[in-house]
């Protein structure tokens, strides 16, 4: 089984823990009425729908927000990079399988999260899904570098505003190098 020990799966899943919790609460009734499998699919589709709505809002010409949606969510970052739906759904599965999420609601929520964990393990050990798993793993690495680059930029601006110019220069330089590294080394595996 392919284990996700050294990647950033949980770190990135945590960014949207509130959304995951909200959606799991919403689908708990579905899980109880129509079964755990239906509950999990409803959760995945609901989260995917919310992210698609978010992307549509961001793309709207009237949107003047400086917030970069890619920094809000790993899945939004994948969407901006035109990843296939299978990759998006696997990322959402990771989000729903986040350790501790099973304690975020009642029995139905716990069972849906357990099902997500089980599905994730199956996907990672399924040879037919290996390309998708590898691509997602590479995107996690890229997203980590992307967030670091943005974080160093934020630190650099803070240093610049405080007249710590040498520190700011150091941080901007590192931010730029990371940016270039991501661009020059994008994920090479593409799941179709």
């Amino acid at each position, binding site marked *: 089984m392919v284990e996700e020990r050294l990647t950033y799966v949980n*770190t990135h899943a945590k*960014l949207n823990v509130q959304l995951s919790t909200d959606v799991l609460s919403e689908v708990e009734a579905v899980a109880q009425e129509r079964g755990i499998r239906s509950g999990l699919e409803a959760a995945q589709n609901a989260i995917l729908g919310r992210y698609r709505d978010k992307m549509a809002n961001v793309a709207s010409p009237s949107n*003047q*927000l*400086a*917030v*970069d949606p*890619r*920094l*809000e969510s790993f899945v939004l970052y994948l969407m*901006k*990079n035109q990843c296939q739906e299978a990759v998006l759904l696997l990322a959402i599965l990771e989000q729903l399988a986040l350790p501790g999420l099973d304690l975020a609601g009642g029995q139905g929520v716990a069972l849906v999260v357990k099902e997500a964990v089980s599905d994730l393990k199956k996907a990672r050990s399924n040879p037919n899904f290996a390309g998708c798993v590898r691509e997602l793993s590479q995107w996690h690495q*890229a997203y980590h570098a*992307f*967030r*670091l*680059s*943005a*974080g*160093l*930029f*934020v*630190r*650099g*601006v*803070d240093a*610049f*505003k405080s*007249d710590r*110019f*040498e*520190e*700011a*220069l*150091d*941080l*901007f*330089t*590192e*931010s*730029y*190098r*990371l*940016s*270039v590294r*991501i*661009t020059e080394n*994008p994920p090479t595996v593409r799941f179709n």
Partner: protein
Amino acid sequence: MRTGPLIRYLCSALGEANVAVVKRFKLGENVGEVRQAVYNLVAPALSILQERINRDSRRAETIAADTAEAEVSQTTTDVVETVRSQWCAFLGPPDIDELPREAADALQDMLTVVLEPPSPSASPHLSRSTAGARMGERLTQQEDVRLAEDYAAAVSSMKAASSPSFSETKGDAVVPAS
């Protein structure tokens, strides 16, 4: 890749930082530390900007058609020229005649990397061990959680405080599309 805003900020920081480093050299401060500052801070930034200047010169027509990009390109060229001229100024009298031997040797080394900064990938001696490189390993949990908001605030605050050296940003992403 949308790195224009980041380059603007990098240009401003380089201009300011170089003035400070040049001043330290003029005041006769620890030459070794000044040399380290040039090698670890000024030269890597110059290397990035020089690469962009070289790239821009190959696509001059495209850049000329984009006002914002042309502005960034011009700022980049101006800052690089300014930094170099500030170091080259030491070559003329009376500075060059008054420099102690150690400082004169250091100046020669520094001029070499300032005038011809090696490409980062081709210059192991410029592999960085600075605070930025070390901090680049990870963000704190608090930084990670607040990153989207802090990034937006950073972009907004820099736009509000725009200086002549890096005028208005377009509010687009600092980091690339990937």
